């Protein structure tokens, strides 16, 4: 089954959030998910410390020297591998991309995120040439507004589409429940069903957004 890599040399764009949402939603679909935490900030490890959803296994502190071997060992029929990378331009990132079936480049709808994120897109294309194989890649906009689509976002989407970049729809809206997953662990369903968990937003809307996002990713893996 596929290896999905979250890549962007910029930090704070939502790589870990995408990774957690995909890991938990694919596990909910019945997949055997292996999540690799390659980020020195250990966001996935922090999430896991509060409890992993059923069907998710986590490898922490994966480094440059073992990334290829760990992905190779985790990859197999019936498994989905999700790799959360560090937000820097490093050899670890380029090696992880080389093992991907799908590279997701999250970016907030800002010019700076788009400019730095485009470095990852360019690297994917160069690796495709070096390996003589297609590495599917797509951009997802993150932390977008639920109410309105800003002018900057519209322009950015047009520019990316114009450049032939695959855009994942829906974007990931700025939801309190997404960030609070790192404080409570588990998945959005457990958050929704636990009355003791108090979030600053609507969990049901967050779950709908995450489900639609995962569905869009699934369509790109077929």
């Amino acid at each position: 089954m596929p290896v999905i890599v979250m890549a962007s040399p910029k930090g704070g764009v939502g790589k870990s959030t995408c990774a957690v949402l995909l890991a938990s939603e694919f596990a909910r679909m019945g997949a055997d998910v292996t999540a690799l935490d390659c980020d020195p900030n250990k966001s996935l490890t922090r999430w896991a410390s509060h409890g992993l959803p059923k069907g998710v296994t986590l490898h922490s502190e994966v480094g440059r020297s073992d990334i290829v071997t760990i992905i190779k060992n985790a990859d197999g029929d019936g498994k989905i591998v999700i790799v959360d990378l560090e937000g820097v331009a490093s050899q670890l990132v380029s090696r992880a991309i080389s093992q991907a079936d799908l590279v997701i480049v999250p970016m907030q709808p800002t010019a700076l995120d788009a400019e730095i994120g485009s470095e990852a897109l360019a690297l994917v294309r160069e690796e495709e040439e070096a390996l003589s194989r297609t590495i599917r890649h797509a951009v997802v906009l993150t932390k977008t507004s639920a109410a309105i689509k800003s002018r900057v976002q519209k322009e950015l989407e047009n520019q990316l589409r114009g450049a032939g970049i695959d855009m994942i729809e829906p974007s990931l809206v700025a939801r309190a429940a997404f960030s609070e997953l790192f404080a409570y662990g588990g998945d959005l369903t457990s958050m929704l069903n636990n009355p003791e968990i108090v979030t600053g937003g609507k969990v049901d809307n967050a779950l709908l957004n995450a489900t639609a996002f995962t569905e869009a990713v699934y369509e790109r893996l077929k």
Partner: protein
Amino acid sequence: MSGSNRLAGLTARPKGTSPEEVRRIDDVGEARGFVDRSPRKKPGRKPSPRTYQLHPKVFPRVGEAIASEAERLGITQGQLIEEMWVTYQKTL
């Protein structure tokens, strides 16, 4: 979205994992500034777990006696002190 049967259609695809392919990828990445940024390890031998100093203020004659006894037994002074500690604990 439910049903693991949908996921069953997704199969593992082979990827380049040979050292030569990894080297090629490293070269491509380095040309774009994706360089090795893994933290460097501290150079030199790791300190022995026995280097913890117990107390330096023993009389020189006691220190010399411990040193010569350890040498006679073919063990380190630390090992001798550990044995003495075990013996002492048995007397309690």
